């Protein structure tokens, strides 16, 4: 099948449509996902295509949306929930962590809960409070959930379909600043499984790892570093829970140095976990401590300060330099 050049938003639309086509039990639920097509237009046209019973504009209540999605999954549906913005997922936190995440265990496997929760997340879009957060750590600490985040249109197209096919709940984090840049999508094959991480640029001096919107920034940083004579290997995490440590540890064993980059605050985060685990598993290979580049441990600041708050190419390079200085 052909390769197409698509934005991530469009790739997601097509991925959702493909999943809905393949299985009539797949339904979409959320706020403003019907005629409006979602505030990011990811569900654009899908209500027209599949009808109002498969693309539901729900009442404005996140706990209600996730709670009823659980009930629908019990009934055999595969609900795909859209949370409008990262910062609005918290009213649903109890239903996600205490019900959705635990119900399969509570049923001792007699019940599967194939619910996908799509969360547009992250900064770089200059938006007001609650619209630029990166809440993935909360869910990565929660057993029973799977977490993934695509960095490219290709991955977005395939990973959303793989997530919907999963018989476990999947939190699907969409890096909203990457909705619009275009990329090649191979419509024929995903090429990689949902929970695998991937080396997206080979290098020898230092490894940097990140997910979502961070990946393109890491690649930019690697480019700049290369001009300055430093060879950075870039790993796209892709899956945040479980984390596929194989390529990462491989890489660290070669470079001896690791920088983890994320938009979320650093404390008690995925970055902390990667640092702790990689140090444990590759202790004798590390020439430097695993360094983290992240949002500060503050609320996401007003938009005009996001440039200072969020990791950028310079901060990534600065951390790589620090790692190399050990």
């Amino acid at each position, binding site marked *: 099948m052909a390769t197409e050049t698509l934005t991530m938003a469009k790739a997601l639309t097509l991925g959702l449509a493909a999943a809905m086509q393949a299985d009539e039990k797949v339904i979409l639920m959320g706020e403003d996902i019907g005629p409006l097509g979602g505030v990011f237009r990811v569900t654009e046209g899908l209500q027209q295509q599949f009808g109002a019973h498969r693309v539901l504009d729900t*009442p404005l209540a996140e706990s209600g949306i996730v709670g009823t999605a659980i009930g629908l999954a019990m009934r055999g549906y595969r609900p795909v929930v859209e949370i409008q913005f990262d910062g609005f997922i918290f009213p649903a936190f109890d239903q996600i962590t205490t019900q959705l995440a635990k119900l399969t265990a509570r049923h001792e*496997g*007699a019940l599967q809960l194939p619910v996908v929760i799509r969360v547009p997340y992250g900064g770089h879009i200059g938006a007001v409070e609650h619209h630029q957060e990166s809440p993935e750590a909360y869910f990565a600490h929660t057993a029973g959930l799977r977490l993934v985040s695509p960095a490219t249109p290709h991955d977005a197209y395939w990973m959303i379909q793989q997530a919907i096919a999963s018989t476990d709940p999947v939190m699907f984090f969409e890096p909203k600043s990457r909705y619009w840049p275009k990329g090649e999508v191979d419509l024929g094959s995903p090429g990689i499984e949902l929970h695998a991480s991937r080396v997206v640029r080979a290098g020898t001096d230092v490894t940097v790892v990140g997910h979502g919107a961070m990946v393109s920034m890491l690649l930019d940083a690697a480019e700049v570093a290369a001009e300055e004579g430093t060879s950075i290997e870039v790993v796209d995490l892709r899956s945040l829970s479980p984390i596929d440590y194989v390529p990462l540890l491989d890489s660290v064993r070669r470079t001896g140095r690791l920088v983890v980059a994320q938009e979320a605050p650093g404390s008690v985060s995925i970055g902390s976990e990667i640092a702790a685990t990689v140090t444990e598993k590759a202790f004798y290979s590390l020439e430097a401590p695993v360094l983290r580049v992240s949002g500060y441990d503050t609320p996401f600041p007003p938009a005009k300060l996001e440039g200072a708050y969020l990791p950028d190419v310079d901060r990534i390079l600065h951390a790589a330099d620090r790692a190399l200085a050990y």
Partner: protein
Amino acid sequence: MSYTPETLQLLAPDGTRVASDATEAYLPYVDALTEQQLREFYRTMSVIRRFDIEAGNLQRQGQLALWIPSLGQEAAQVGSGFAARAHDHIFPAYREHAVGHIRGLDVVQIIKMLRGLTHGGWNPAETGNFHLYTLVIGSQTLHATGYAMGLRFDGLVGTGDPEKDTAVLVYFGDGATSQGDVNEAFVFAQSYQTPQVFFLQNNHWAISVPVRVQSRTPLFHRPRGFGIPSVQIDGNDVLMSYAATAASLDAARAGEGPQFIEALTYRMGAHTTSDDPTKYRDDDELHYWQERDPISRFEAYLRGLGESEAFFTEVHDEAEQFASEARARTLALEPPAAESMFAHVYSQPHPTMDAQRQALADYEASFEGGA
């Protein structure tokens, strides 16, 4: 927050039938009940009460982590439980032992949960569509509503075919009415016109908090503000509980949207075996409700209908038998294997689970090696 002029009742506390304009519509449901069914009501209430006492004893003897008594709420549960059809789905809170029993749930499953062996662990497909208990107050109301949305999307509402039309019956308590989730369930239910009956057991207490703290207004007024029709019934009257639930389920299955029943009843025992109700409530209230006991009331009614002493003796013996079997089976329960905690966190293979299962095994093996 006790009986009001609006409280629907068919059996007075002394076991005599009462009639009113408001209950007229419910009579066909009651009239259609066979003697056998009436006996079944009595039998189930009696068996579950006896079991309930036994389970409380087991807890005191250190056999259970906790017991949650349903003492006093048997009529509300048995009436409503028998009103559901086999293919209806039931979402309980955590006190609906009688309903579970009616649906075919082995009560030892409840024991296992409260002994600390499982978190529920039964399969609703094998227990008459009686779903797991939910301990987080109110959460199950949204699951029930979602399930009922699914029934509607599946076209199983208002077809007129009794084999097809299906409804959901969801239980919750007076304390639960304060939770956001329960009110969101009302919102979704009315918005999607779900085939669903909300069954509120107002047992007057949420642990130590009296219902007037949750609401100064009769709770059955609440759903009306959401556009959900409601009735308040005498929840210690098994006939009324049956008839109101049957009628509401019929309406729900017929496509008339969600329905709501507030059953006034009373938690005659402690909240759980961890609780000490003498700290917060007085005997007068208990006596008031003891005079309205659901089982002795129904016994009087059956006796009035001419039921034989032999029947009551038989039920008594059956209840004893049931309780002692439950006890014996409880004592025979084995703890689960430690590695079972990794088994169903995910439905598909998961590297963290594999690694941690292995780590636990290695760790345990290290002792054997060292010994």
